[in-house]
């Protein structure tokens, strides 16, 4: 399972880099969301996969018995997903505002805040 997911992470990163190299802001944002998912998967795989062993504490005991799945990466991924969701929502709204006020999504044409071209 781990090698498969690792390859998947690689594919996601490659796709996201390809998308982020585009001039279009929307493609960049799609690349960004792919990259953040790749990062989440990387954390998940880093915690080692344990199939079919939920980290549950049996009745009357203080800790789970035997080998159970690592719960920490899932908590980390959950936090990262929530934060990433908030930031991505902001970035999308920013893109909409940018299109409305600048009239373009082509990042090469966004030069309002840059110095005027000489000559």
């Amino acid at each position: 399972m781990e090698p498969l997911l690792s390859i998947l992470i690689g594919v996601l990163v490659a796709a996201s880099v390809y998308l982020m190299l585009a001039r279009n802001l929307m493609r960049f944002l799609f690349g960004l969301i792919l990259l953040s998912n790749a990062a989440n998967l990387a954390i998940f795989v880093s915690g080692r996969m344990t199939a079919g062993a939920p980290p549950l504490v049996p009745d009357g005991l203080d800790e789970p018995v035997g080998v159970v799945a690592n719960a920490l990466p899932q908590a980390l991924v959950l936090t990262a997903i929530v934060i990433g969701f908030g930031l991505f929502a902001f970035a999308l709204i920013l893109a909409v505002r940018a299109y409305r006020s600048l009239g373009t999504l082509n990042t090469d044409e966004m030069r309002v805040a840059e110095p005027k071209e000489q000559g």
Partner: protein
Amino acid sequence: MSWYLSLPLILPFVTAIICYLLRDRAIGAWISVAGSALGLVAAGVLMALVLDHGVVAGQMGNWPAPFGITLVADLLSAVMVLITAITALAVAIYALSDVNARHGSLGYHALFQILIAGVTGAFLTGDLFNLYVWFEVMLIASFGLLIINGGKEQIDGGVKYVALNLVSTILFLMGIGLLYGQTGTLNMADLALKVQDVENQALLTVIAMMFMVAFGVKAAAFPVFFWLPAAYHTPSFSVSAVFAGLLTKVGVYALMRMFTLVFDHDIGYTHTILLWVACFTMVTGVLGAAAQSDFRKILSFHIISQIGYMILGLAIYTPLALVGAVFYLVHHIIVKANLFLIGGISQRLTGGSDVYKIGGLYKSSPFLAVLFLIPAFSLAGFPPLSGFWAKYVIVKASLDEGLWVVAFIALAVGLMTIYSMTKIWAEAFWKPHPDGIEPKLSALPGRAALLIPVIFLAVLTMVIGLMPDPFVEFATRSSVQLLDSTAYITAVLGEDAIAVPVPDLDDIPTTEILEVEQ
């Protein structure tokens, strides 16, 4: 429960909530000032405690150390929290005049306080994932502050700022994941011990490089600084002052923390890269500034070149070099925030920020001219101002290591800094205003709130410059703590955490960097 560690964090959040509830009233700005003043007191208490007791640590929710979230304050953290509180108070006062009612009702003061909380949290946390969370808190607040005006310029700068910073945080997150996979812990003190047992040290270096890139983007180091000059000149002056003072320094702090505490396994490799990054950062920053004509764009590029000096201190990695880096960090926050605040006053007086289109400040407002000269000369490194001592220590440290080229670059960049400062001086202050305006300070509405923070920060620069001894001594103690992580680790994990003696760090880096250099 260690209240003194959590108080500098809780205060800005509480202030933010009150500010948000009262955002439609004029009193919101005053609450921001009051909250920042209380924050300064809390940071002072923390500083006094750290000076007395050494490294202090507290476990949030009373979970024992490697499992729960730890807050740690060593001397570096404590001084960064203190300087953050000072900057926050100065900017909060400045904002009384600088921020209009519309921005206030959009939640400016609440966002500002959350930004301060995020920065403080990043300085205090002892947990890597928690550091990521504080970075995000800081980031989302800075996004809001950057585009709060909603003009074309702000949106344009905001897109670049948001895009590049998001990429850097994701890279940071991925690095955290991989490091966790190698060590099974996220607590920084625990990491410092566990990385020694990692079998695949080469993989550890790869992870270290991911962190270096991620923090490098935050710190605006070469070659990943492009977001900074694209964005920092667009928001209101109080916002860009707090950005310029604090945000990039969080990146530098994170670099200093991780590359002294955790990633010191292959100093010959990682710190040599940092050395070249530092040199290129200094040079590109100062050359970029020479080409600009906007008051804030010149200053923005100078942030980059000054970041180079701090990274240089870390890269040389001798006790003296780290003294210089810590001293530089503290001095630079005060000076740079002050220059941006003065830029704001000058724009109000002259009606522009392009230095070629304004002028006459020296003749009509000589007091402002004096206030500008202090931080400007300090930035360039004139004795006896604070920047002189900071540069002196770093150049001395590189000479001690035989890094002649590096020392030469550092000095040359200092000279070129003077060029930019004299450009601002000659154009904005010395020559008469092209439109014949006489920018009189006495005619400026709300000038008390604008001038008090500027005077306060200028006095602070003078004090550091004229009495450098206690500050250098402090920086020395702090660099000793950075190089010998024993105190940090035992404060977090308990006395018996270190079973094996920590290798003597002083001997390794000097020879290795020397070899590569030759």
